[in-house]
């Protein structure tokens, strides 16, 4: 039930994002001052228009593309970086483990959103930098989880057996340990995905991250504040899309965890 709901919601968002140019009849950036602030249900603009007369449906749909793109990129970058560092820390132990774990402790001494926000304010605005900032703040979770998994997996008999047969360290790590840690990485990635998407929206909402006129949900919500008295739909729909995305991916992540790794806590 949970899995089906999560899967269908996620699928709807993905299809909406992929099909944005075909579903939306308008260019998300095209202003039409004569048609500004039209309410939902206006012919030609099912979700209404914003203060510049841009079609809200088109902007929400293109926003989905951006949100999923940022979420996917961040999850891949953090998965690779955090995964590799976790593998290293768990497999080699001694000082690499100590170094990675101390860095993790330090990063975890800042609330995630504050760290990502501060890094973003320093490295600068834009799409590439928001992915960079979220990744820099988010890789720690993978490193911790993967390290813990590696520590337990490498004690298993098949790893000892492979080592006894004279398998090299690199091959041992990537052929025998990594495949057995991979499910955890996938579970963490799915649980982290919505956190990254929401964090990106929050950071763009605060005036950093992705800048207008690019249709990002966070910056759309930020602009909607000035029109809250006259145009509720500008605040309602981008946020609804964001909440639905988080809901779908969360449910999917919960299901993946229950299936592959019930004891995992993120």
């Amino acid at each position, binding site marked *: 039930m949970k899995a089906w709901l999560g899967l269908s919601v996620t699928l709807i968002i993905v299809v909406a994002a992929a099909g944005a140019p075909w579903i939306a009849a308008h260019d998300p950036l095209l202003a039409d001052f004569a048609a500004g602030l039209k309410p939902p249900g206006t012919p030609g603009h099912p979700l209404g228009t914003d203060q510049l007369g841009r079609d809200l449906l088109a902007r929400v749909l293109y926003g989905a593309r951006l949100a999923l793109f940022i979420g996917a990129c961040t999850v891949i970058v953090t998965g690779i970086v955090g995964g590799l560092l976790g593998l290293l820390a768990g497999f080699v132990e001694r000082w690499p483990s100590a170094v990675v774990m*101390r860095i993790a*402790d*330090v*990063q975890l*001494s*800042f*609330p*995630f*959103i*504050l760290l990502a*926000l*501060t*890094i973003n*304010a*320093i*490295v600068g605005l834009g799409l590439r930098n928001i992915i960079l900032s979220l990744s820099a703040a988010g890789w720690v979770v993978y490193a911790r989880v993967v390290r813990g998994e590696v520590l337990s997996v490498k004690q298993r008999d098949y790893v000892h057996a492979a080592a006894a047969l004279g398998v090299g360290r690199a091959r041992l790590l990537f052929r025998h340990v990594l495949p057995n840690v991979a499910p955890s990485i996938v579970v963490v990635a799915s649980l982290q995905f*919505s956190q990254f998407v*929401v964090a990106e*929206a*929050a950071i763009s*909402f*605060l*005036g*950093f991250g992705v800048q207008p006129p690019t249709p990002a949900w966070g910056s759309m*919500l930020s602009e*909607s*504040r000035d029109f*809250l*008295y006259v145009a*509720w739909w500008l*605040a*309602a729909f981008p*946020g*609804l899309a*964001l*909440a*639905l995305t*988080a*809901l779908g991916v*969360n*449910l999917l992540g919960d299901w993946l965890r229950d299936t592959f790794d019930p004891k995992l806590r993120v």
Partner: protein
Amino acid sequence: MRRYLLARLAQTVLVVFLSLTAVFGMVRLTGDPVLLFMPMDIQAKDVEEFRERLGFNDPLAVQYTRFLAAAVRGDFGDSLRYRRDAFGLVLERLPATLLLAGAALGLTLVVAVPLGVLSAVRRDTAFDHVGTVVTVLGQATPGFWLGLMLIYVFAVQLRWLPTGGMGTAAHVVMPAVVLAAFYSARVARLTRSAVLDTLGEDYVLTARAKGLAETRVIGKHTLRNSAIPIVTLAGLEAGQLLGGAVVTETIFAWPGLGRLTVQALLNRDFPVVMAAVSFTSIVYTLMNLLVDVAYGWLDPRVRKT
């Protein structure tokens, strides 16, 4: 217990020291720091003078030592915007954030913990299912969007509550609800699973077999034992309120630490940024220490690890 305490304390000191180093590193190693510390309206010819005045021409090691020595005394320099002691500004904003976080925490304990306990006790009933739906929705709803929607309904349409600012009790309601929403959802889920775990224990079965009243089985045998994971996890999650405050305070123009941080970042007022971020990190670390110590005190098994 003493050894455990000392070890955790030493670790905390190390993390605080490394966090300060990280704050220094973040601001210094990402390009020319003068560009971060300069007022916006400065003339090009003054840049060099500014660089010299702020000591950015000294070797990095000297700057680092100077930063650390000043930081432990609570000196992060003067705010570029307010022309006053940056750390003083941070301390001034602290009570507002504590009030908000306290209200959110109280709300969570009153709503989320009973919800979680009842869901577990009445597992698979309609109540449990509704509770699960509410918590899943609560976790998926971004706080800043919830805030905007609440403002629209209760401030714009119904005119029951003010849109923002601080002053009367009515001002606290919406920010506290928004801050508590996500946190409550987590705590309710954690409580439910912690109580369910305990309900499966042998001593609960024994208590029931003895013929104890159900209220006593739940109230005494179950709740006391599931309190440990609830306290720990709720405590660890409480730190996230500090992160949540960054966004919530901005929406509701709440004059706390989070809003100060966001404004300082927007104004590129980096002495205030460094003071606020370092302070938040230290408070967060100390909260984690407190939770760990409480955990060790509640559950002797922990001290040995």
